[in-house]
């Protein structure tokens, strides 16, 4: 456990416990408590990482490995956007309001646990806590679809947990310890890996299922589409990234893919990554529902991260980290916008939407920024992370992978063009006529995130310095 960051785990947990009691008579108190908790944490983190003196020093003063801190920041940021959005999105009379915020905070706390832990057992515990909060969150609006999504999520990720625990047991038996450090030292030594690689493969498989990589992606579109609208942003933006993708990246660094000791595993990972990029993007082309399209897009983008993690060179890991953060920003924007559309126009069916740019200009233009970043159009942040990943692939001599990964950006752009034509530009439909732009509070998190997308793109040198620091600390 990275003790320096323990407070970020405990405080939201405490808030989660307090909220049901505090909000018993006044339900609105739940919103305020949740927002204040996350905002305070975020400000604290910003102070820790973004002081001018820290930036000027090339981020050398950052405690720990820097990776955890960055991801805790991402978790808090997305969490804050979601809670802030929910505070205005939720109907006033909604019964389970305090429970909803408690669950969000509990999941923030669990995610903090996942990214700060230094051994597999704790990791497993937090992953399970996260999964349980997610099931409950998906069903917030108690619709049939939500329950269906939650059940699918449950049934498909349960075997994943089983695989992980079996893998962990084998690891315990063969290494005698579950700490990350032991595995790292073991992989750096000359001892034949034997069952350790097998155990790692099982754990990896579990996490791949949880991150929704092809061919384990069946649950994601249903879960995202069925989930309560702001929850789908939470889920797609950060939860599945932390419970699956982060763990894959972490494991990739521990297994030292870059020095070829677990070459078979690394190749498999890269292949699945590319497969996800392709399948996700091609499937997204054919979707008729906004949220489903975003879900497939998520699968495709996760593919880039997994591809980079599978390569495992320092540059690739930097790309993966950057893309992980970028993905959190642009997917949150897009999913929150889909929630706004749902609230305002009453549907996310792209056939029924159209010409929304006039009635909802802010929603439209923030969506455009987010989708261009997803497609890797410069100078937005998504371009730089993809570029780093592609450069890393090329540098490692995997030119075919690099070229394919690059050209699938075009498919990404293509499905988003389809979406833009149907939803935002194009003829106004009946649904669009009566749809008002959502209020400023609902726009605030989206605009903030869009600004971040632009800023991360323009301030790439700073982010690069940070990611470089992280890669050096976790790989060397």
């Amino acid at each position, binding site marked *: 456990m990275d003790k320096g960051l323990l407070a970020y785990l405990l405080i939201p947990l405490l808030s989660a416990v307090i909220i049901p009691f505090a909000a018993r008579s006044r339900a609105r108190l739940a919103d305020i408590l949740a927002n204040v908790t996350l905002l305070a944490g975020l400000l604290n983190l910003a102070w820790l990482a973004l002081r001018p003196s820290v930036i000027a020093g090339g981020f050398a003063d950052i405690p720990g490995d820097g990776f955890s801190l960055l991801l805790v920041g991402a978790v808090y940021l997305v969490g804050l956007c979601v809670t802030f959005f929910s505070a205005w999105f939720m109907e006033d009379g909604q019964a389970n309001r305090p429970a909803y915020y408690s669950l969000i905070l509990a999941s923030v706390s669990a995610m903090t646990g996942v990214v700060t832990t230094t051994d597999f057992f704790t990791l497993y515990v937090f992953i399970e806590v996260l999964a349980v909060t997610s099931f409950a969150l998906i069903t917030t609006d108690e619709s049939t679809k939500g329950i269906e999504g939650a059940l699918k999520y449950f049934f498909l990720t349960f075997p994943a947990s089983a695989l992980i625990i079996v893998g962990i047991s084998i690891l315990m038996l063969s290494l005698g310890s579950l700490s990350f450090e032991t595995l790292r030292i073991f992989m750096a030594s000359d001892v034949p890996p034997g069952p350790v690689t097998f155990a790692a493969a099982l754990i990896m498989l579990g996490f791949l299922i949880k991150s929704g990589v092809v061919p384990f992606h069946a649950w994601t579109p249903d879960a995202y589409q069925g989930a309560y609208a702001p929850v789908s942003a939470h889920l797609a933006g950060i939860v599945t990234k932390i419970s699956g993708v982060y763990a894959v990246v972490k494991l990739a660094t521990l297994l030292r893919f870059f020095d070829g000791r677990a070459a078979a595993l690394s190749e498999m990972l890269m292949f699945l990554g590319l497969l996800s990029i392709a399948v996700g993007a091609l499937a997204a082309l054919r979707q008729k529902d906004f949220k489903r399209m975003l879900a497939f897009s998520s699968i495709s983008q996760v593919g880039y991260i997994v591809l980079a993690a599978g390569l495992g060179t320092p540059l690739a890991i930097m790309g993966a980290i950057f893309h992980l953060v970028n993905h959190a920003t642009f997917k949150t924007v897009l999913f929150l916008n889909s929630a706004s559309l749902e609230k305002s126009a009453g549907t996310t069916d792209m056939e029924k939407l159209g010409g929304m740019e006039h009635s909802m200009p802010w929603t439209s233009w923030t969506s455009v920024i987010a989708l261009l970043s997803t497609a890797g159009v410069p100078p937005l942040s998504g371009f730089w992370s993809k570029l780093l990943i592609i450069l890393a692939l090329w540098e490692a001599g995997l030119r075919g992978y690099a070229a394919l990964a*690059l*050209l699938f950006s075009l498919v990404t752009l293509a499905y988003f063009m389809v979406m833009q034509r149907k939803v935002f530009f194009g003829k106004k439909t009946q649904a669009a006529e009566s749809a008002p732009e959502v209020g400023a509070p609902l726009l605030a998190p989206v605009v903030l995130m869009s600004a971040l997308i632009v800023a991360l793109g323009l301030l790439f040198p700073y982010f690069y310095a940070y990611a470089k620091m992280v890669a050096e600390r976790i790989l060397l």
Partner: protein
Amino acid sequence: MDLSIKMLITAVAVPVFGAFLIPFAARISTAARNAFAVLLGLFTFVAAASLASTVLGGQTADFTLNFPRGFDLILHADLLSVFMASVSAFVSAVILIYSLDYISHYDNQTEYYAMVVLFLGSMMGLVFSANLLWMYVFWEMTGFASWRLVGFFRSDRDVAKANKTILVTVFGALCMLLGIIMVYFDHGTLDLRMLHGQAISYAAAAFILAGILSKSATLPFSTWLPDAGVAPSTVTSLLHAAVLVKIGVYAYARIFGVTFAAPDAFSNTVLYLAGASALVSAGAALIDTDIKRIIAYSTVSQIAFIFLGLASGNKTAFVGALLYILMHSVAKGGLFLCAGIIEQNTHTKDINKMGGLFASMPVTGTAFALCSLSVMGIPPFGGFFSKFLVFSGAAQNGNLAVLLMFLAGAVMTLLYLVRLFYKIFLGEPAGHGSPKEGSVTMVASVMALALIGLALGALIYYPSAYAELLTNTLGVNLQ
């Protein structure tokens, strides 16, 4: 900091960031927004042109913003970039002025002005970038702006055309990025100043060429331009024909003309591709009946002549190609703006429904004729000198097949422009109501461009001296 460096930075930064302030200016009033947009355009032109004195004095201006891994943003003003920047900023400024009337009664005007200025700014960035990666960055930004501009009207057809435009050009751009990555790993740098005179591998050159051809709408990527041309506003199609396609030409001149020494086989491939492009599109221009499509096809065909000059590998042709860029921008700009006036006043784009318009639109007709003559290459218009130099350079190169293809192309240019002029302005009126002359600013803009075309022919000494100086100082591997 030196004044010229300040001018260099403002020439890029003012339009790029100014574009995002246009929506705020629109909050004040329509007039404020329009004035602001035109001012941005004029200011950019002045800033770019003011660098001419520096580069003519044998100096260059450089500005570097450090990025990791050799991705530095380097702005570099030399003879070529200042030439290109001045030409495109000038045409864009004319477009902005002409737009004041032309688009005043359509929706989405704020977006329109913001995108034209953003386009201009990214064009400036592209032209001044001395780092291949940043050329790519600005390249994509121009793609984004033109996507919004082609989709200016929001009917499904227009939006689909806009999407086609961006997908074709982005496909090319991604190929180009692949080529850039190859250069990066072959040479360890993307700084064009350091790559000067180096050899480039065939594969990298081919990938970069794909990007260039897609942007300049040359075969096999030519289909998007006529489609973008029928998209809504003539102004938009002008922006594409007169400025956007020049990006590809500029990139060719920059990368293969003054930086890398391209393999001979590569240059020959380009010549044949360009020749085919010139013929096919001239043929299409001969049979089409939509005035804007004809002019768009004509652009595709003329761009091929510029490639002929750039790829012929000798100084005469290179000078001719540079002059061609200038002459074509001015003359084709004039033609498109005339087409805009005609379309707006007759409410049709079909040339079969026009005829006898000279009586009612004498000034537009004269301007159209003057611009056509320049595009055809009739002396003493500017277009004559550029076409003459390109052909004499190509003759020196000695590739007879290519030369014949282009001669046929030049004859066809003559034919389709005469046909166009005849169908529109002469012959019997064909039931188009009572067309009248366009508004004063619009007619003034086209007449100005037509007269500039004539003046450039009379004063050909100055532009050609500039082009020769450029070729002699910067040209690589030219005989």
